[in-house]
């Protein structure tokens, strides 16, 4: 019983992390029609920043670190969008290739700066004590992580559905040309959304640090999971990213625990099923 509950919690926390990663990816794709392959690298960059900051200053607050790293990664993402991606508007293939190139540059840069050994990220002291609930013992940090994802999901939902900025983004997603025609600065929206997505990934990287630790190849491990999440949930759909993250969180965690060698093959199955019966994803719309 303890096994199932602990693995269930691990699944939830991995799902939470995946949501932080894939929500930004999905948002960027929805608005910009851009498959941002740098997203895994942004996540890894966040983890490395967090690892460095938390190890350098003892007792630094994790939330402040996550916020700081998120802002730095958002700034890097914004620069990349302004300097490179804007030049390639309308050239979908070119944009994808450039984000791929950027992910190689960031990944290799991390290898130069931080070396090849994995760097553990300390769990904040206040969250180290286990939580007892209903007679079971849970690692507190993982519970908190699930909470973070839910908070992020609610905040993103509020931003998209209840604010002026969100209304402009939704208009841009639905009909870019019409949005431009009624005076919405779509080009600025692109930059904002790209920064936002990169920032969430960076902050998510810091929060994932205590579980995953920072190591070279983290980006290559996380990106396919994010891709599978958005293919499953429907590209561009926030709800799809949320549900998809937890589905993949469960499948991957239980798969690794029960059939360690086959966990990667088990990841195929939901993707194949969804593509076979609902190619646009569980909550996706048919893109015209």
């Amino acid at each position: 019983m303890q096994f199932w509950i602990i693995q269930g919690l691990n699944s939830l926390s991995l799902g939470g992390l995946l949501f932080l990663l894939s929500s930004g990816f999905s948002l960027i794709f929805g608005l910009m029609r851009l498959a941002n392959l740098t997203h895994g690298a942004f996540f890894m960059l966040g983890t490395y920043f967090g690892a460095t900051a938390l190890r350098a200053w003892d007792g630094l607050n994790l939330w402040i670190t996550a916020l700081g790293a998120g802002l730095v990664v958002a700034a890097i993402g914004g620069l990349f969008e302004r300097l490179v991606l804007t030049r390639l508007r309308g050239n979908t293939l070119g944009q994808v290739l450039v984000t791929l190139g950027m992910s190689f540059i960031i990944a290799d840069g991390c290898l130069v700066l931080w070396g090849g050994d994995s760097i553990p990220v300390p769990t904040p002291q206040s969250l180290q004590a286990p939580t007892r609930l209903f007679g079971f013992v849970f690692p507190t940090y993982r519970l908190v992580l699930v909470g973070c994802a839910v908070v992020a999901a609610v905040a993103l939902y509020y931003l998209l559905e209840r604010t002026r900025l969100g209304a402009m983004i939704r208009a841009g997603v639905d009909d870019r040309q019409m949005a431009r025609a009624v005076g919405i600065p779509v080009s600025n929206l692109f930059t904002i959304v790209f920064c936002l997505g990169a920032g969430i990934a960076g902050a998510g990287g810091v929060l994932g640090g205590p579980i995953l630790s920072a190591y070279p190849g983290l980006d290559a491990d996380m990106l396919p999971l994010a891709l599978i999440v958005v293919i499953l949930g429907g590209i561009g759909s926030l709800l799809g990213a949320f549900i998809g993250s937890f589905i993949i969180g469960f499948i991957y965690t239980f798969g690794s625990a029960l059939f360690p060698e086959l966990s990667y093959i088990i990841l195929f199955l939901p993707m194949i099923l969804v593509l076979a019966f609902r190619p646009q994803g569980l909550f996706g719309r048919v893109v015209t």
Partner: protein
Amino acid sequence: MKWLGIALIAAAFLLPPFLAGDFYINLASQILIAAIFALSLNLLVGFGGMTSLGHASYLGVAAYISALLTSRYGFGHGAAALISIGGTVAMAALFGVIALRATGLGFLMITLALSQVLWGLAYRMSDITNGDNGVSGLTRPAPFGISLENPVAFYWFVLIVAVIAFATMAIFVSSAFGSSLQGVRDQPRRMAALGFNPWMIRWITFVYAGFWAGISGLLYVYYNKYIHPTSLSTTSSAEALLGVIAGGSGTLGGPVVGAALVLLLKNYVSAYVERWNMLLGLVFLFIVLVMPAGIVPGVTRLIANLGRRSR
């Protein structure tokens, strides 16, 4: 003029064994293998409009099957090659069915995800694939009793395969089927209205490209006598894609030139610096921003312009 060009190209491929040392002959073999691989990817990217970021899967899987069968299970090279190509084609057929549920960016993301999953498998299933250590201690085949251990003999072998590959792929794209493929790339709805089946045309091309990628994977593992999960990685797929795009996708000569450039760059640069991935990323940015049509179309246009001016 045209015949002079063909003669020059033929000479460039036929002369190395007589003039160059082993180092350069080996380099030339590697270039030819990379060229076959890039040409097969070009069928998808250039002629089919299907940008795949997982093409290394087919190279890697063919190489792994052959490596494991010959080194562990005592198969002969002939049987191993047949099984490996058969397996690769079957996998391409299956992956094609999955990936072609989508087009455009969806296709790209699915191929990337599938190839990453295979890469992860090669790393994690270490009792079968030997994980991060790779499979070593392999041998080269000896077709008709001619050993290919000697660099020159191996070069001739690869050259023959490469010429066959180039010729059959050239026939493939200039055939009626190739025209319908390009039609599907440009106007899928119109082609469907004309009674063609765009999905089937894409799928057949996907499987055919997987076949040639598998052949290049066999040559790859014969050359290196070693295989490691990196061969299945996104970097490996991306190198080939860079070659196709840098050379000029949708042309026949472009991918050969591009693959040669990427390989030369990789060989010469890694002799001085270890930062190949960073350089690969920078070259990607450079090519896409500065030379989006690729080198071969760019140079062809340049020559055409010069010719017009001199007249």
